[in-house]
């Protein structure tokens, strides 16, 4: 992966309403949820153990909301560079299950430029393979 993809874009391609390129993630697997549990320290068993998930009324394990947010974090790093992310704010609006494929999408809400630094306020979200939004939010990045 090369990036940041937005740095090379001229201002007029970053005006309010400009649609950002997509980042499609590989399908979520149970193995990924176990790895994310270990890496993040979130050991809530509803994410890794089907039996526990069923005792709280789920059909089976669901992904950590923070995993979807991490996808958006990667999306911002890809768009603007990992040094450029100033804010990311999301709401978790739908459940994600193993086998779901999430795509990160976004558009520009506002662009402000001062001293050659462009600060962008972005609408970002992840959606599943049925085009249902599962994580919705806003972010701010600074690109030079």
């Amino acid at each position: 992966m090369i990036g940041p993809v937005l740095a090379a874009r001229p201002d007029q391609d970053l005006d309010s309403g400009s649609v950002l390129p997509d980042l499609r993630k590989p399908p979520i697997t149970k193995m990924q949820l176990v790895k994310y549990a270990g890496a993040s320290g979130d050991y809530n068993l509803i994410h890794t153990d089907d039996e526990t998930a069923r005792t709280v009324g789920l059909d089976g394990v669901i992904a950590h909301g923070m995993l979807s947010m991490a996808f958006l974090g990667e999306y911002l790093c890809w768009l603007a560079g990992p040094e450029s992310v100033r804010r990311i704010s999301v709401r978790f609006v739908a459940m994600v299950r193993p086998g779901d494929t999430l795509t990160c999408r976004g558009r520009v809400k506002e662009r402000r430029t001062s001293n050659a630094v462009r600060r962008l306020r972005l609408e970002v979200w992840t959606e599943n393979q049925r085009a249902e939004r599962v994580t919705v939010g806003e972010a701010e990045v600074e690109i030079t």
Partner: protein
Amino acid sequence: MDHSPALTSDLIGRESEVVLFEVERGAIRKFADAVQDQTSACVRGDVAPPTFPTTFRMTIPGVSFDLARVLHGAQEYQYERPLRAGDRVRCRVRVADVYHRQGRLGEMTFLILAMEGQDESGSRVFTGTTTAILR
């Protein structure tokens, strides 16, 4: 599972201890691997991904709940600069708000937690806000 005590507005303002976390290169790499994050600086373990502070786990005295009954409603992080391998951040989390709402599934409790991480000179590096919904 134990029945946790009800969360009330009495808890607002309650804080965790200040905990020192060292941002380890290996932990960044492991996190990036789990997420399948292909950002080069994160894969190398140089720069922490934006949601990395989720690994900084702290407890607040008196604030406990049954994990099976909690939903993560929302999350925000704000950065003065990114976290990098080798950073030592002093973190604290505080109950910013507790309120109750009637929802479709009955009464729900909203717990808002505010986290802050400072570098060793006392400058703020990041803040985090967690909205947990307990049903």
